[in-house]
């Protein structure tokens, strides 16, 4: 218990993971490390198994073989060390924002007053103050995802798993989200695993981009954009290294796009 965080620099490791659906090999001998406190993107064309990998790490899907560890503990199912942000938000439509944000804590048996005060803090953090009593259908897509994010943050897990979290929100909101995410990575001492199919998004937000190729899925390349990571968020998209990496990833992926 005393050393819950583990010794290694890797919050999550994936070792020789295979995943078969019947005869279909979704993941083949996949190994990847996720450095602690950083954001790693899983990037690839659709059908490359990036969401499958994320759900195996989450403990929502069992791997056919291989090992996944979180803080050096093997993953056997979902656990409090990981929190999930869903592509379609997965909010309770019958519950207001406050209850939705506090729902992770509610399931963990935290008392009502305590979980609501924690939820209030994260509602403020994601900029939804004043919407505590609104229902999901009264919110825009971007606001709903803020609720999903606040829910994942409020359980204070060390690893945040995000499954294409911004794909269902409009482009402007998406850019704002990406900037907020950079701040989050900087200030919250958490490890982020981020699934996306957008090359620009992956390069923009990531400390490390793992490129997955399909049929069967494997990691083809790991890229670490370093030069512009500490620059101002507004100048990243003009940075030559950013543009180079985007170009490089596109040229290696384009053969897989029809």
């Amino acid at each position, binding site marked *: 218990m005393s050393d819950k965080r583990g010794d290694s620099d890797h919050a999550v490791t994936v070792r020789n993971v295979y995943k078969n659906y019947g005869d279909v090999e979704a993941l083949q001998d996949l190994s990847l490390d996720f450095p602690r406190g950083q954001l790693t993107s899983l990037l690839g064309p659709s059908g490359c198994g990036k969401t499958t990998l994320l759900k195996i790490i989450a403990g*929502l899907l069992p791997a056919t073989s291989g090992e996944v560890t979180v803080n050096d503990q093997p993953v056997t199912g979902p656990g409090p060390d990981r929190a*999930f942000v869903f592509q379609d938000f997965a909010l309770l439509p019958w519950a207001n924002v406050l209850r939705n944000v506090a*729902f992770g804590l509610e399931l963990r048996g935290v008392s009502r007053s305590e979980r609501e005060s924690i939820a209030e803090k994260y509602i403020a953090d994601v900029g939804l103050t004043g919407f505590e009593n609104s229902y999901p259908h009264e919110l825009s897509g971007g606001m709903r995802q803020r609720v999903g994010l606040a829910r994942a943050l409020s359980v204070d897990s060390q690893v945040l798993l995000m499954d294409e979290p911004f794909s269902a929100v409009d482009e402007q909101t998406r850019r704002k989200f990406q900037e907020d995410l950079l701040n989050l990575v900087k200030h919250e001492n958490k490890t982020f695993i981020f699934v996306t199919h957008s090359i620009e998004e992956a390069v923009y937000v990531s400390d490390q981009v793992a490129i997955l190729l399909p049929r069967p899925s494997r990691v083809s390349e790991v890229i670490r954009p370093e030069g512009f990571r500490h620059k101002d968020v507004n100048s990243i998209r003009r940075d030559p290294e950013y543009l180079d990496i985007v170009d490089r990833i596109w040229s290696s992926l384009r053969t897989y796009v029809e």
Partner: protein
Amino acid sequence: MKVFGYQLPGMSSLILWGVLWEIAGRLEITFFLPPLSAIFATLLEIGTTKVFLKALADTGYAFFFGAFSAIAIGIPVGILMGKSRLLDELLLPWVNMFLSAPLTALVPVLMVLFGFGMQAIIITTALFAIWIIVLNSRAGVMQINRSLVEMARSFGASQKDAFLKVYFWAALPEILGGVRIGFIRAVKGVIIGQLLISIVGFGALFELYSSNFLMKHFWAVLIVLFTIAFAIAEFLAHLERKVEYYAARR
């Protein structure tokens, strides 16, 4: 609905049919159809008699016990069937069979099993109501958004919490739809039970009035029954509309 630019109040069609009924009754086309006003007069007359109130109480008792046991058993069974493939495979053929089976034909068997009393009537009522409640609850659970289920799992929900805090609420619009239809079927069930098993309650009144050709009395009881069934169905439909806003957004 609008007619010639006027907004008609709800249930205007009932007024139209009521007027037609009154006219047909006064024309004395058939003894089967006395004027509506005479029926209401009879209703006021018998509505306060001990016999009528006793019948209402008997029928209400059997109805509510039957309908509520159908809900109490039907909803959990339906939810479990929706969640467990095994249970579903085992039970679904039976549920479908009983849903379409002529349950009236089963009533004599129930009489052999449970006697001629209130118990058999309650069971008949429940049998009429339960199958659609099971099927709708099952359908409600089966269409729950996958990511809601994964959300509950990923935040470590216990089985009990997942049921009470996610599955039940996510399936609620369908469950309420099932309960509404189940209640309407229970009205049928309780009357059939009271006609066939032991002649009590409204069943006895129907029997008494129709065999003596007291059509005004017969219709009066039927109108009371219709009003009660309609009120219950409308109340449940109102609840359904309250949760409908999220039915499309799960």
